[in-house]
């Protein structure tokens, strides 16, 4: 039986919930927007899936974030972020989605450039910006340049501060992204269970020699401390975003 299970998991027909270990048929999971029906755990999803479940039918026209009209093979050099003109439940916006599955959503020069362009597009088109974040932080392999993208993206936000912006923190959003443009939005939302913080839990534990309590850096803890406006389950995202967008 376990062998059969492993086989089914391997070919993707069944999925295991990382939170409650329940085995779920993948098509059912997908129908439920990648949320575990047993424990409400929100699975991490990539940018493509995110866009598909948020936007209306035909409601997403991708924007070029590379700054080049023609690039090699017609594909961007990185898939760490996607953005486009979107319609969510009838409301127009620029939708930008970071992708944790690409190098942990780490912020290097490419992502820095792309984020700056997203802000410019939103300003040019005079529409609100909805930003879904997912990032392990600054891309350390790029040395000082990764870190400096924090200033560039923060500046891009302060220079376009009149543009309404909603950030939705998804699991995980840490380091260089939580401490830069993402937290400067007008409305801050998060998905249930998302980890949002600056320092890594292991660094904190090594420094202080304390064991961190459950819920540390989790969305619910940030909400209680006043750093979020609301935690929104994936099923409510479309309607919540559209009512905020309607207000702007």
């Amino acid at each position, binding site marked *: 039986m376990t062998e059969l299970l492993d086989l089914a998991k391997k070919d993707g027909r069944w999925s295991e919930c990382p939170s409650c270990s329940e085995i779920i048929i993948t098509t059912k999971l997908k129908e439920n927007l990648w949320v575990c029906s047993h424990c409400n755990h929100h699975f991490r999803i990539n940018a493509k899936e995110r866009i598909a479940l948020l936007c209306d039918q035909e409601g997403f026209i991708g924007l070029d974030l590379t700054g080049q009209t023609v690039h090699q093979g017609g594909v961007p050099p990185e898939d760490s972020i996607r953005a486009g003109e979107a319609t969510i439940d009838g409301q127009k916006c620029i939708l930008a989605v970071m992708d944790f599955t690409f190098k942990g959503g780490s912020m290097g020069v490419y992502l820095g450039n792309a984020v700056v362009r997203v802000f410019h597009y939103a300003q040019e088109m005079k529409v609100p910006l909805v930003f879904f974040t997912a990032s392990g932080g600054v891309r350390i392999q790029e040395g000082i340049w990764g870190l400096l993208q924090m200033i560039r993206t923060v500046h891009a936000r302060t220079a376009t501060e009149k543009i309404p912006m909603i950030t939705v923190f998804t699991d995980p959003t840490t380091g260089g992204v939580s401490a830069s443009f993402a937290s400067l939005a007008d409305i801050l939302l998060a998905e249930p269970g998302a980890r949002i913080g600056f320092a890594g839990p292991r660094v*904190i534990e090594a420094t202080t020699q304390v064991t961190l309590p459950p819920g540390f850096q989790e969305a619910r803890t940030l909400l209680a401390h006043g750093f979020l406006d609301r935690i929104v389950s994936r099923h409510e995202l479309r309607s919540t975003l559209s009512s905020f967008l309607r207000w702007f």
Partner: protein
Amino acid sequence: MTKKTKDRLIDVDNALKDLRDSISRLDVADMSEFERKVDDFRQEIYDGITRWGSVELSRYPDRPGIDGYIERIFESFMELKGDRTYEDDPAIIGGLAFLDDTPVVIIGHKKHSTHTKDYMKYHYGMASPSGHHKAMRLLRLAEKFSRPLITFVDTPGAYPVPEAEYRGQAFSIAQCIAAIASVRAPVVACIIGEAGSGGALALGFGDRIIMLENAFYGSISPEGFSSIMFGDSSMKVSAADTLKGTGKDLYREGIVDSLVKEPVGGAHNNPELVIDEVGRLIRHHVHELQSLAVDELIMQRTRSIQSLVPRG
């Protein structure tokens, strides 16, 4: 290179030559080890030390800290405390002072005080959210009264404790970076020691940036980089080479405007010399920035922030 440093190098060279001559007169079978050490030493003096060497110097306990700079460069320092919402962060020191006759605002990381090595008391210069809020409060003073702002960066990073996270560390850093990026007053940033990650960046940018050659600015420490990439800190020396965070590296990349040479062995070997040079550069830059209209200042800052990408 200053004349004094040059003279010292010649002294060292002569001493080495004498030593080599006297040893070669002795009947020593193997001179190669000695020769190698002499070569290493010479290379270190002339080519500068390794990047890891700079990292170690940037953390050296006797390296001049913010107190030494404030005392020697400015007059009548009036310290201001508190973030006006919660507490006074000992890791961030700030206040009002005079640079010659010009009233200025000073903000910086305080790692230890000059006469006692109270690292713990100052959280090793690692700022809490309250430190960033204190910095923003002082920044608003600079803007309100149109005074130049001088920052000093000397920190391993933001304070990694649970309390700092509960109080919104990430949010306070983002706000502090935003405040410096948009403040309508001239900002001169001085990178004098360790400059680690977002904690350093919160105060580590300005219209002009001055950096000491052995200061080290990076998204992560070489030990941290090595741990993430190789599982432990054993590769810290090569990690420092990958991170390329010394003053010389950043000056070469055009990220910093002024590079301050350090005496042989590091800034602690002649603090007065180093501090006076930093003081001279601060005066030079403040003078230049004050001649600009604020709108022009902001326009130039926008250009320099958006050009923070590798050339080529």
